[in-house]
């Protein structure tokens, strides 16, 4: 049960208002997609949910209790600019997510526990398509590979709330479809709510139970004086319910050929 | 070569403070003007560096002890002549034991001193007087600036040093002066020396130095207010006050009058002293690597006699300038 409630939240940097009076209610186990123009405050909103920043006004509660004042194991995150640990190999990065909560003293697992965790990590690494790169350091990975590594790391923890900031932006359609499948399977099987920022409307509607569009009100040039508000809030239909069946991810079994071009663009949100 | 501009280095020590005073009060300028010279007087806080700079040729004249004059500039090939014998240490250098009262008690102790300095020589002379040698003690090189603080630590039980450190240390409880330079009078001399060649080409420079010195002496030894004011200025410049300075002076045999100095430098004791000193230095390998014996470097005494190699005279005593002062011929 992880109902997130955002009440009249404002966020300001100096005299620039970024978020303006946002109120939202996320049901337990919802999969929310957050869309909106670049620079409107989506990342900022995630940072609030992560307790990385505190709202200038308003409050956020989880299951009725105020949001913990610091980031914690209950909320996993994949940052927009893929941030992995440069001093650990791919395997080390993913393994870390198992070691940190389990070995409170040494931060390392040994023996059977380690073997189990390593198996799990290797499986996850393979699922995000990084098999074979287990022993590489992040500096030797491509951009998309780093992004997938960050995702595997966050998924390893199976957090109750997963915050994703454009996690699939640097992935090609093939691997992206694979990972969509992985995400949905995890969402169905684990007790998990997801808030995902994306610019891909199709992705939003394919994965999410609800799509929320932020938008900044305009008034002449003086745009910066107004913060973003919730412009649209769409329940996806037919309803998807976590744990009930594995609805096929459309992209996966799509018969369309790669040459099939010229199809229409998902238009920009009416701004 | 004849020249007009001269540089004199002096360092802070009771017997040399008059040079700073003379520079500050215009006595230097007065005498320099008289001979049509300019004399630049530079104060060093670090005695060793002043010797090094003189030896390296940066200065024409220097305040130095007889022993260091022999071991550094002379051994370094810089022919050096004593212009003025200003004083000799008459208690300014001392061997001090903690909680022991006899020099003989020093046996087996660690002795903190500045190695190869006059303290080292004093220790050697002291040990000689009680029939010991340096092998009976263990010498630890200790910088003079830290000597007082070093004495206050537990592990330090014997030090050899000079004033004002001696009087500072003697204020401690249990500190005993067991041997000092008054037991070897005349052996540790404080000199004003100059480069022999420069002096030869410019005898006026030597005369100016003598003039400066004895005029300053006259002011300083004045028993009235004038003398007190001068001594108190010197005390202040050396970091103490009139009383402190006077107590240091008391352990100094100052040759305030030129005739006294002339008599001293002509006496046979100087030759005997220099013989001891050169033997000490040779034993410590301080006369240069090439020195095969203590005779390697010649020392010319005031009467023209030469100790050691006559072909390699590098250190000379002369009474010419002091005598000129004594005779009022400056």
């Amino acid at each position, binding site marked *: 049960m992880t109902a997130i409630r955002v009440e009249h939240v404002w966020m300001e940097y100096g005299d620039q208002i970024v978020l303006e009076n946002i109120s939202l209610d996320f049901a337990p186990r919802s999969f929310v997609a957050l869309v909106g123009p670049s620079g409107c405050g989506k990342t900022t909103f995630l940072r609030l949910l992560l307790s990385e920043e505190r709202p200038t006004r308003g409050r956020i509660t989880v299951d009725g209790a105020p949001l913990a004042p610091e980031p914690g194991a209950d909320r996993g995150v994949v940052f927009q600019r893929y941030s992995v640990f440069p001093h650990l190999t791919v395997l080390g990065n993913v393994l870390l997510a198992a070691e940190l*909560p389990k070995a409170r003293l040494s931060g390392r697992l040994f023996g059977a526990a380690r073997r189990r965790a390593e198996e799990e990590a290797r499986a996850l690494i393979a699922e995000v398509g990084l098999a074979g790169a287990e022993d590489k350091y992040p500096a030797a990975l491509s951009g998309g590979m780093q992004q997938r590594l960050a995702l595997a790391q966050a998924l390893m923890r199976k957090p109750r709330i997963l915050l994703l900031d454009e996690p699939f932006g640097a992935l090609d359609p093939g691997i992206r479809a694979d990972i969509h499948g992985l995400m949905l399977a995890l969402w169905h099987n684990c007790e998990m709510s997801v808030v995902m920022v994306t610019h891909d409307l199709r992705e939003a509607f394919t994965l999410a139970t609800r799509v929320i569009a932020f938008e900044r009100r305009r008034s002449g040039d003086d745009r910066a004086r107004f913060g973003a508000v919730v412009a649209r809030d769409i329940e996806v239909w037919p309803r998807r319910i976590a744990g009930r069946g594995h609805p096929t991810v459309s992209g996966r079994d799509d018969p369309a050929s790669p040459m099939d071009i010229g199809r229409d663009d998902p238009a920009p949100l009416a701004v | 070569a004849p020249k007009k501009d001269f540089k004199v280095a002096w360092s802070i020590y009771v017997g040399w403070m008059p040079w700073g005073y003379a520079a500050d009060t215009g006595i230097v300028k007065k005498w320099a003007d008289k001979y049509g010279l300019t004399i630049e007087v530079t104060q060093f806080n670090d005695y060793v560096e002043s010797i090094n700079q003189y030896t390296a040729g940066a200065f024409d004249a220097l305040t130095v002890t007889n022993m260091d004059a022999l071991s550094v500039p002379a051994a370094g090939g810089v022919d050096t002549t004593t212009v003025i014998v200003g004083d000799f240490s008459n208690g300014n250098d001392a061997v001090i034991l903690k909680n022991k009262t006899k020099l003989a008690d020093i046996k087996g102790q660690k002795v903190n001193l500045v190695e190869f300095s006059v303290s080292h020589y004093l220790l050697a002379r002291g040990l000689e007087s009680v029939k010991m040698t340096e092998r009976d003690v263990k010498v630890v*090189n200790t910088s003079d600036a830290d000597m007082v*603080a070093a004495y206050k630590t537990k592990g330090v039980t014997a030090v050899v040093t000079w004033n004002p450190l001696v009087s500072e240390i003697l204020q401690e409880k249990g500190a005993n002066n067991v041997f000092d330079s008054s037991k070897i009078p005349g052996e540790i001399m404080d000199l004003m020396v100059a480069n022999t060649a420069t002096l030869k080409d410019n005898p006026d420079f030597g005369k100016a130095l003598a003039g400066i010195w004895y005029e300053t002496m006259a002011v300083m030894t004045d028993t009235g207010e004038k003398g007190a004011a001068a001594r108190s200025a010197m005390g202040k410049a050396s970091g103490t006050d009139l009383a402190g300075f006077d107590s240091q002076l008391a352990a100094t045999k100052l040759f305030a009058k030129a005739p006294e100095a002339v008599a001293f430098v002509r006496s046979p004791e100087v030759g005997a002293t220099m013989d001891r000193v050169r033997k000490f230095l040779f034993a410590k390998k301080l006369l240069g690597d090439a020195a095969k014996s203590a005779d390697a470097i010649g020392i010319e005494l005031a009467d023209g006699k030469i100790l050691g190699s006559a072909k390699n005279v590098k250190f000379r005593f002369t009474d010419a300038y002091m005598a000129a002062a004594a005779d009022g011929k400056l």
Partner: protein
Amino acid sequence: MRLINRRPDRGTALVLAALPFALVALAYVLGSAERLAENPADKLLPSFATMAETFGRLAFVADARTGDYILVSDTLASLERLASALFISTALALVLGLLIGLLPLVNALLAPFVALVSMVPPLALLPILFIVMGLGEASKIALIVIGVAPFLTRDLAMRVRELPREQIIKAQTLGASTWLIALRIVLPQIVPRLIDGVRLSLGPAFLFLIAAEAIASDSGLGYRIFLVRRYLAMDVILPYVAWITLLSVAIDYGLARLRDAAFPWFGRGA
């Protein structure tokens, strides 16, 4: 091609690297020759031959009385002090720097103090140091530590703060406690930077070593230098300085290799 993109090949690089040294050596030889022509016993700039001879004597001829090789025993005595002091400084800096950089509370408590201590000229406080630590090895090592550790600590704390904030947040979302963040995220990333810090403080460390040995000692490289300074024996001082420099460069190089070997990921960006 832009100068910025022009890389010398190995041979050229070697020649270039040798050039400034050759120039300095040449300047020395000329200066020395000139002075020696004037005064063959000149002590300030002895000829290379004299220095080589003196150095050979110090290094390879056993002292008649003690049977020691002076250079060897001096070097060992100094390196022992240096090693102890660097070990203590490094350990101190690692712990303090990590805590100051990571924990705002410790930062508030200690950062101003360490900043202030790093500004205190330690040589002026020697008397107090002697009283507290005695005149033996302890105070010499302490002097080096006081001279080096505050700099290292401040440098390290700065480096901890330079770690991307995202990493710390990420670690928290992976369930790390403060202890585990320090142990598994910050420490391993900080150690190679600490090694670089130690490399930068080798110069100051030797400086304080020499100062410490000049104060009260009967062996060590600094002791010898200050002893012979009394009679301007540059034929001993210059080879000793060269030897000290060589030792530092060797340690510097060794540390750089160690860092590269132990932290292959370091310095390659993320």
